């Protein structure tokens, strides 16, 4: 009977008693809001007004109607999120893979280096944002000072001009989060079958050929996971823009989440904001599925 769950004396309700506390929380704060959000998005839900009239799909239609009030702001925030995602994901996939390869050897101190590269990831965006706001200060910041020492321009307005704002936001995010992907790649490298390397070596494959024909294909499922998770994380970007650029210049670096949160929770136009959330979620869902298919099954 080893495969079966324990045959302890069980009354019919015992499993439900174990599940109940979690299921109560889950229903109230995950299931209900998922459905409630959809409901809100079908209403003109202004928190400040006494009634919330049903408007059907109007909130969604507005997002695609260039005459509407929200059209411009919404799509400019979506494009900010798009720019950030497209600019950050390649770095957050390639550099962590390089670091994982660097660490994938047996040498004393391996775990120390792994921990050092991972350390910034345990900090919150508030610390990371404040720290980089300081380092990127155009006058007294360490980044411009270092550039000056190297004989490069040392008066770059990192936080309120383009493209520097994007370079700053992407750079600090790569510094902050790449340890996460590196650790996942490092675990993935352990699963690439040893004997494939041995076979490749017997065939006289160079290190580069072994990487290209054994390591990369062996990492394909891990890469599918890393790319998908990183796209989702980048598309969720909020704190860096909120704290460091405050959306500047203009609203150019105001991301979709920042706009949705401001619309819904500062301006209290919740119907609008909920619809925006679902549109963004739908787009991300489609991207995730496509990209998983592409990376997983392309042979």
């Amino acid at each position: 009977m080893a495969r079966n769950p324990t045959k302890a004396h069980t009354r019919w309700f015992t499993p439900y008693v174990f599940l109940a506390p979690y299921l109560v929380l889950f229903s109230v704060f995950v299931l209900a809001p998922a459905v409630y959000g959809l409901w809100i998005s079908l209403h003109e839900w202004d928190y400040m007004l006494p009634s919330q009239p049903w408007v059907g799909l109007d909130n969604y239609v507005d997002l695609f109607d260039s005459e509407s009030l929200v059209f411009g702001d919404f799509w400019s925030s979506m494009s900010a999120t798009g720019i950030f995602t497209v600019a950050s994901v390649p770095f957050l996939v390639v550099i962590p893979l390089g670091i994982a390869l660097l660490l994938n050897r047996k040498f004393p101190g391996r775990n120390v280096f792994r921990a050092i590269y991972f350390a910034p990831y345990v900090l919150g965006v508030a610390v990371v944002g404040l720290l980089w706001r300081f380092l990127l200060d155009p006058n007294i910041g360490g980044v411009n000072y270092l550039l000056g020492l190297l004989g490069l321009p040392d008066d770059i307005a990192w936080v309120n001009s383009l493209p520097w704002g994007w370079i700053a936001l992407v750079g600090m995010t790569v510094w902050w989060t790449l340890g996460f992907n590196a650790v996942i790649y490092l675990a993935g490298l352990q699963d690439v079958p040893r004997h494939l390397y041995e076979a490749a070596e017997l065939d006289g494959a160079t290190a580069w050929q072994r990487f290209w024909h054994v390591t990369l294909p062996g990492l394909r499922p891990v890469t599918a996971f890393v790319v998908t998770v990183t796209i989702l994380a980048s598309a969720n970007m909020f704190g860096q823009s909120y704290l460091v650029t405050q959306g500047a210049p203009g609203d150019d670096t105001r991301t979709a989440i920042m706009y949705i949160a401001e619309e819904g929770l500062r301006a209290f136009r919740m119907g609008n904001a909920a619809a925006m959330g679902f549109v963004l979620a739908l787009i991300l869902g489609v991207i995730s599925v496509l990209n998983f298919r592409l990376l997983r099954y392309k042979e």
Partner: protein
Amino acid sequence: MASSTSKRPGIAWYTMLIGLSLVFVAPLVWMFLTSFKTRNEALAIPPTFLPEEFSTKGYQTILGDDSQAPVLTWFLNSLLAAVGHTVLVLAVASGAAYALARMEFPGKKLIFGVIISTLLIPSFVLLIPNYLIVDSLQWIDTPLALIVPGAAGAFGVFFLRQFFTSLPPDLEEAAVLDGANHFQIFVKIVLPLSKPALATLAVLSFLSNWNDFIWPIYVMFSPENMTLPPGLATLQGAYGIDYHVLMAGAVITAVPVLALFLFTQRYVIEGVSRSGLKG
């Protein structure tokens, strides 16, 4: 690469490792050193590396009586929220995970399927409806808003269920022969055997709650109820370019999680690489 794993890496290899380490560590060291500089030195051009005059003025300014920001209160609020959240996650997720891993009952597959599928819902979709739900419970601007809703996520259940499923059934069977019921097996056998998994989940839960930013800036509005992350955002407004003060605030927020990571990095890193889901 089989051949390279057997070889000891050379000087170039170590140079790269150490060079990279500097990139990750230097900004943190800079933050730490700046927090012990005087205002003038923190703003000096060119910057100094070590504080010429070791000063705790930055800390005194935000922790003292005439501080414009109750940083000590924020620290305690953060601690209360993170500990409360962690305890709640462990309590509810372990029970649910035990039922799903070690019992058979009608509806099990459906319940597990629904829980797991919500891992795919992006958190921003829940932001606005959850605000309204928390508001109708009258939890806005109270610690409950920071502690409870976050404990409903599917990650903890998923993570512990994987671990409970992998436990060998022998000990449980012996306990059953001795007449133990599920509550006794859960408390006396499964939980003690699962200490590493519980510790990993505890640390991950603590870190994510301590660092949470977007939710607390919208649900907490009184200065005395805030946690450190939204508090830091307001410090920027209160102290402008007094970077020695701002860095002192950042250090106060960063040190607890860096210390926690230092002592539990094995759990954190292995937890992340095994599940890779808490993004």
